């Protein structure tokens, strides 16, 4: 056997089974989901094979006018989810940035230790980490216990099942996601640039705004994308910390599939999340492409 054909055989051996698996069980289901979003829901769950654009219409509030009135509730939930996801991005950024700054300037040993400590919780169960906050925030939880027993308040506070609780929980969960890209950016910062700025007369605050922040922006952008998308489609955190009172888009999708059994609509909702994700990814590619092209032109 020639070298080329032998290589092809090996490649086929390596790629064949995996590709088949992924095509059938990964790409296939995604494709089916896209198709389903355009189908009509069957009477007892399942689908009917007719083209039914009203799934998407309903998201925007306009469904089949014969049966449903204008209802902006889905838009409202979507916007709320975007708001919560955006606030989570902001919160994780504000929390992580100073810490990343501090850790990037430590000695090698301390750096590795701190990184280890930060990535460790990433490997533990999400549900366990959220459970902790339930215990802390609920009416009989730790915070209320401490405040009540020390006499600072008389009735327990409503901490859990609020938007704030969800944002707190999401921030807690997503800190490792934001930290890594931000830290990578901060660590790569050429400190002589900071010195040059100070040398030329810019004070520390100005140096931060004009030099440090712009140069760490790629890390911040990366972190924002990694946090925003899962936060947007999240349903565990709002389910545990929001209860039935604060619903996010992810809960909506879950509801359609397990309670309401309206799969096409659920699929349409999922498509909406996917499209947001695609828009963000394309934006990132375009932005970094523009930068990359400029750099290539320079050579």
């Amino acid at each position: 056997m020639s070298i080329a054909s032998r290589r092809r055989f090996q490649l086929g051996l390596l790629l064949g089974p995996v590709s088949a698996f992924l095509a059938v069980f990964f790409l296939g289901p995604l494709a089916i989901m896209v198709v389903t979003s355009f189908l009509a829901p069957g009477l007892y769950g399942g689908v009917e094979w007719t083209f039914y654009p009203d799934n998407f219409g309903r998201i925007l509030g306009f469904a089949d006018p014969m049966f449903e009135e204008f209802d902006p509730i889905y838009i409202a939930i979507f916007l709320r989810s975007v708001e919560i996801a955006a606030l989570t991005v902001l919160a994780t950024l504000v929390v992580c940035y100073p810490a990343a700054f501090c850790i990037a300037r430590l000695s090698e040993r301390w750096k590795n230790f701190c990184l280890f400590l930060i990535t460790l919780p990433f490997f533990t169960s999400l549900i366990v980490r959220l459970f902790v906050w339930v215990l802390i925030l609920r009416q009989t939880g730790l915070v209320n216990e401490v405040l009540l027993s020390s006499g600072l308040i008389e009735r327990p506070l409503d901490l859990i099942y609020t938007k704030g609780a969800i944002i707190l929980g999401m921030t807690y969960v997503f800190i490792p996601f934001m930290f890594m890209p931000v830290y990578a950016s901060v660590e790569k910062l050429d400190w002589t640039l900071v010195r040059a700025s100070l040398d030329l007369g810019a004070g520390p605050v100005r140096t931060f705004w004009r030099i440090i922040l712009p140069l760490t922006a790629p890390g911040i952008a990366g972190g924002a994308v990694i946090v925003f998308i899962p936060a947007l489609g999240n349903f565990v955190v709002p389910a545990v910390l929001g209860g039935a009172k604060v619903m996010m888009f992810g809960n909506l999708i879950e509801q359609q599939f397990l309670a309401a059994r309206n799969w096409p609509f659920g699929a349409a909702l999922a498509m909406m999340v996917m499209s947001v994700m695609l828009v963000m990814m394309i934006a990132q590619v375009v932005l970094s492409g523009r930068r990359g092209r400029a750099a290539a032109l320079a050579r």
Partner: protein
Amino acid sequence: MQNSIVRLVEASKAFATPEGGSVTALDRIDLDVRRNEFLTLLGPSGCGKTTLLQAISGFVELDGGSILIDSEDMTDRPPYRRPVNTVFQNYALFPHMTVGENVAYSLEVAGVAKPARREKVASALKMVGLEGMEGRKPRQLSGGQQQRVALARAIIARPKLLLLDEPLSALDKNLRQAMQIELKTLQNELGISFIFVTHDQQEALTMSDRVAVLSGGRIQQLDTPRAIYDHPVNTFVATFIGASNLFEGTLDGDRLMTSDGMAIRHQPCERKISTKATALIRPEQFFLAEDNAPFPTIEVDLDQIVFVGSTFELFGRTAEGRKVVAEVPANRRSLVGAIEQSRKARLAYDPSAVHLIGERGGA
């Protein structure tokens, strides 16, 4: 001291080592930098020259002593409040800004309006020979061009003093020499003092009005290049700048007697120096003597004769085994031819060219 733009008084700085000890980078240094002078800080790595520079720019805080810039005490002032700008070794150009924005930075910080900024940037770029490059990004420029942008950026706000931290070390030889001339011209044009750090003695000698040779956190000698070369005050300076032949011994009348029996004749000293001294003869002070020349000589066996183009370098050894280096012009081919055959040379010298270095400083 109105003539000095920078004055350091007993400046001291020590750094902690990772093992737990401490290293003295600046050892009670006193330094007066004159107005409109090109001063070079010269020394091997670790001698404290970069620390000294950073102390002046404000990035190193002194443990003891003070710094005055234009008679104002700047010891406790942060770098952004000192009228001093630095050209960094790696240029430190802001990659996310254009050349124009980089150069305009200090003006922007000072609140200069946009139209005025644009004008000044244009003239600063013209001064460094980069007219019209405002729109480029640093990564689009060559090393030499980046360096000029760094220069333009540092001088545009007319600081009282410019510090240059080994700015030419990343350039290749030809570019380096061209830049040396340009820097010197620029300094003359601007009329502000430049403090230049380098470990390259060639650079120091060519460019400076005065040179400060540093070692171990102390200034060994602060003088014009000529003086440092001809009259080094100690053996460190003597060997650091230029090649040298050193003969240690005791002074006896008009000669220095070495331990291995050599007698080096020298001119009488004006100053009184110690009995024990070292005589310095630069290689180029030797010449190949005609037989009856009335000059003292040193006889050597030649190990190597190296042809360097305009000169021959002779590496030889005395009968006592002492190494001697001599440099003779290549136009005395006949003489050189003779010694090439015999592998022996009689190196003659003029006693007035011998420089004596006493135990604590020279004559």
